[in-house]
């Protein structure tokens, strides 16, 4: 829906800023290989002892190097790519499951709704991080993909809950009744009538679960559980803690990932607020600045 996108883009400066940052990050992540090659200038900047360890930031290495002499700028770009990848996989899992549960519950109503809503609430109150930690610590040969799927399996209740409440407001609208009288079946009504109308909410739900998944992985890695053979933003923070970078004063290794993560977070948050203001004009000038 190009027209919808244009009006979304025009709606507020917050949305423009947020979308620009998100697109820039995705492009950076997609180009991480060429960027690393460019930084390495012929050799792999992420190879152990590629350079001197703990170099301070300079023209050749804008963020310096780590304990093993790897270039930290290349590492940050690479880490962004891995983190986004995990986030998107988990976000898709969570959104698809959330759509199914939320739409079925909201549309069907009755005992199906109350059962699904109760199950959703149960998943919402189970403290997920301890379970995620335990599982990622015990699964042997865990890969980023596994972690992403596990995180996604725990992230769906939020999406389901939001979508359910939106479906509830739509299900008795005249056009849905009309669709029902023309003998469309439930699946057709959900996917042809309801889903298109809720795309902004699905988008927001996807962005939020993606972000949640990225931070869940960061949390797991800060503690030191999770896949060990990958470079991503959470691992960088973990290395900063376990290698004593905090007491050494080697700031780039944790400032860079934290800055990137916070910027991504802010971008998604601003898009969220912008959408909210556009779709809920009552809130304009109240929520946010």
């Amino acid at each position, binding site marked *: 829906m190009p027209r919808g996108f244009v009006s979304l883009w025009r709606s507020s400066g917050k949305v423009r800023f947020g979308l620009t940052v998100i697109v820039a990050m995705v492009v950076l992540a997609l180009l991480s290989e060429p960027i690393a090659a460019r930084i390495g200038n012929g050799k792999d900047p992420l190879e152990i002892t590629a350079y001197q360890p703990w170099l301070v930031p300079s023209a050749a290495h804008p963020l310096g190097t780590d304990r093993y002499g790897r270039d930290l700028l290349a590492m940050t770009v690479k880490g962004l790519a891995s983190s986004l990848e995990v986030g998107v996989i988990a976000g898709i899992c969570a959104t698809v499951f959330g759509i199914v549960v939320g739409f079925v519950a909201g549309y069907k109503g009755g005992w199906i709704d109350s059962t699904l809503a109760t199950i959703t609430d149960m998943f919402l109150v189970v*403290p997920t*991080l*301890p379970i995620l930690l335990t599982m990622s610590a*015990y699964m042997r040969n865990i890969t980023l993909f596994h972690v992403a799927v596990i995180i996604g399996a725990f992230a769906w209740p939020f999406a389901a809950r939001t979508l359910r409440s939106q479906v509830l407001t739509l299900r008795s609208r005249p056009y849905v009744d009309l669709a029902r009288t023309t003998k469309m079946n439930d699946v057709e009504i959900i996917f042809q009538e309801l889903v298109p109308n809720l795309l902004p909410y699905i988008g927001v739900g996807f962005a939020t679960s993606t972000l949640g998944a990225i931070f869940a992985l960061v949390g797991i890695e*800060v*503690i030191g559980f999770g896949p060990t053979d990958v470079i991503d933003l959470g691992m960088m*923070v973990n290395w900063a803690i376990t290698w004593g970078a905090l007491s050494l004063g080697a700031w780039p290794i944790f400032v860079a990932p934290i800055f990137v993560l916070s910027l991504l977070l802010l971008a998604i948050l601003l898009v969220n607020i912008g959408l909210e203001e556009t779709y809920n004009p009552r809130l304009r000038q109240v929520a*946010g600045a």
Partner: protein
Amino acid sequence: MASAAITAPAETPRVGVRRWLADHPYAAYAIRRTALFVLTLWGALTVTFLFFHLIPGDPITAFIATLEQQNIYGVEAGKEAIEHYKELFGLNGSLFDQYVFYLRQLLITRDLGPSLINFPTPAQVAIYRALPWTIGLLGLSVIISWVFGVALGAFAGLRRNTAASQWLTNVAISLSHVPNYLIAVILVFIFAYRLAWFPPTAAYDPHYEKAFTLEFIGSVIQHGFLPALSLVIVFTCRDLLSTRTLIVPTLGDDYLTFAEAKGLRRGHVIRQYALRNCYLPLITGIAIQLGFVVSGNVIVENIFNYPGIGNLLVQAIRTLDYNTIQGVVAMITFMVLLANLVIDLALPFLDPRVKYWR
């Protein structure tokens, strides 16, 4: 469900329990809410149990694997030894038997079995020892940030066209969703290592006796300052934003104009009239966020090596201490649900507008 007695149709005379419930709507509400609490607790514990027992590579398999690998003097750990441990940890029999064992352990005997961190001390002893640290840290942080958040939020809402307020709001938006453990990392770097104002780890100086002496309490405050600050920063920003969002629409309302027209002082009007309407959503907000708060706190405790329940969990996972892991997860679930229950039961007293009978 049980409607108020006045609206009940006269032709259906209520007798016994139903009558009593209809006459005591709050009691009916409390019973219903408590029943829901029990149901949700059971559901959550079951979900946890299934996750730990059904996923390949679960802690139990890992634990048995380490038991089997313990070859002492070339002799494999005897079958009896493994059987003994399985018996001890409730890993015998079918999945259903194990489930019954697990629920009995948690709910009836309330004995989690031996912990591995310090065998054979029961796991619940370690958990009870760690619990006060976590509750203290979280409780104080939530209360402190609530005070700051409401005050700053009221300021930001009342003076919303000033530059200071807009800056405050923008900073709050940026910080409100940053995970507290990332803030903790930055705080440790600046205040513990660069400036050396606060200690980077532990909860108190081991030189002092654990007693209610000034030195010990001072040491606890000094050690707890940074972990608490990392939590307070995030919570304050969230409370600030919600207070601001809640107070702005009330500002033009007639009852405020009337209160001011009566000649009440402005501070009094704001505190007693405008802000009172904002407390309730803030309190329910705390209830909803509690799960995240506890989760984020696990990581913060780990960064500061704080002896709370989160750190215990991480140590237990490192040492494959299955009983402790299970106990901590159940304890966290229980705490989150209990806090929700308490808040829900208290709401009708805090705000008479809340209709708890449906």
